[in-house]
């Protein structure tokens, strides 16, 4: 199934809407386990964590279509890559914001240096900001697509290294579930939380896909109009 075919279908958008309502309403009335420090803030699990998943997925789409662009040279792939990264960046900011509010409650500060994941994601957000700066500094659209494609492939690989290798070498993380903090390990992610968490993941990922596909279609229409003039 091609990207265009998938994104014009209705069924998954309907599921997304239903699940988003479910997450936002049931997420606040579901009974959560009573953990020390976390307490009610555990409900952030339905918002903060799925947003990272959505961002990761969108960045993977960006990577996939960047590689596809370099091997095929078709502008269509570049448009999809760009718009996915744009919405991915939006989810990145949202993830940082929800995480920051949550950190103020539980860790007592908006930003904590000792936290590896925080700094890694801040770097990732910076990388994708640089990606858009790079795009905006080219006027020739073919060169723009090629150079930003190369940049985003490089960026994605380094980013993967950053969040997968560095924390392992340098040890501790303050996130729930790491280093003895109470959290949502497979042991204590109880069934109530799971009932909201998994739908929430699908809902936010669906929203991300939907938003980016709309931007892609707008861009396609614009280009068609340009070619008619």
């Amino acid at each position, binding site marked *: 199934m091609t990207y265009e075919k998938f994104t014009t279908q209705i069924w998954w958008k309907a599921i997304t809407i239903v699940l988003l309502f479910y997450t936002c309403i049931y997420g606040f009335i579901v009974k959560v386990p009573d953990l020390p420090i976390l307490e009610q803030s555990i409900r952030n699990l339905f918002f903060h964590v799925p947003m990272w998943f959505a961002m990761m997925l969108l960045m993977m789409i960006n990577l996939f279509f960047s590689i596809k662009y*370099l091997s095929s040279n078709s502008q269509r792939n570049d448009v999809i890559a760009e718009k996915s990264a744009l919405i991915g960046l939006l989810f990145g900011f949202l993830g940082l914001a929800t995480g920051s509010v949550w950190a103020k409650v539980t860790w007592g500060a908006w930003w904590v240096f000792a936290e590896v994941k925080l*700094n890694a994601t801040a*770097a*990732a957000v*910076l*990388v994708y*900001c*640089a990606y858009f*700066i*790079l795009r905006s*500094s*080219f006027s020739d659209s073919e*060169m723009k697509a*090629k*150079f930003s*494609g*190369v*940049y985003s*492939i*490089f*960026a994605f*690989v*380094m980013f993967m*290294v*950053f969040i997968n*290798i*560095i924390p392992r*070498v*340098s040890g501790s993380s303050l996130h729930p579930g790491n280093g003895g903090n109470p959290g949502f390990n497979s042991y204590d992610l109880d069934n109530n939380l799971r009932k909201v968490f998994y739908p929430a993941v699908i809902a936010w990922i669906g929203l991300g896909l939907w938003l980016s596909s709309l931007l892609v279609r707008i861009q396609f229409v614009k280009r068609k109009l340009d070619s008619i003039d």
Partner: protein
Amino acid sequence: MLEQANRVKYLILKEAYLEWRNKSVLASMLLYVIGATFIVYYAFEGRIEFQSWTAIFWVIVLFSVINIVGKTFEKEVNQQYYYIRGLVSPIELILSKLFYNAFLVFFFELIVYVEMTIFFGIQIQDSSYFLLVLFLGGIGFSNLFTLFSTITARLNNIVVLPVLGFPIILPLLILVLRLTNISNIEVDFDEKMINIGAMLLLDTITFILSIILFPYLWSE
């Protein structure tokens, strides 16, 4: 295979020869590095703690690397593009640039290190380990910035290089700072080698990525 290796060798020699003939670039870089360290020496009034030493050392190195490596492809992309393209394959070209830049960056790192030692005294306990860190770190820096300098050469705008490079260099920088700390404290051998291994891994990843991606940037 041998023929390609030979061509890479000649490209590196050409690079070194041109650099040597036009000494003003090398000399200005040297002065840049010396000036930066001297300013730091004055700002700290000759006394410095180890943590600040590490931070300052790597900041100076990072900014010099940008200036050294940033103009790698200036000539190739603009004046000699068709000439070079007719002579060598892109992979040979990027290999020669990577080797040459790694050497150059290591050289300037050594200069900064010697100077910081002269000004602030000996700060690093295990200096042979630190030299290894310098060498591997230099390779990582040069791999990354060499690839991106193609982009800035096409744009004719070196200001973009730090914008593109700084966020991506962070994993490397964090590792290098850790390694610098390790070379100053007593840790067991395994711990040292694990971190060197991580550094090697990063160098390899950036090396392979540069080689794979460069032909796309080089083609018109």
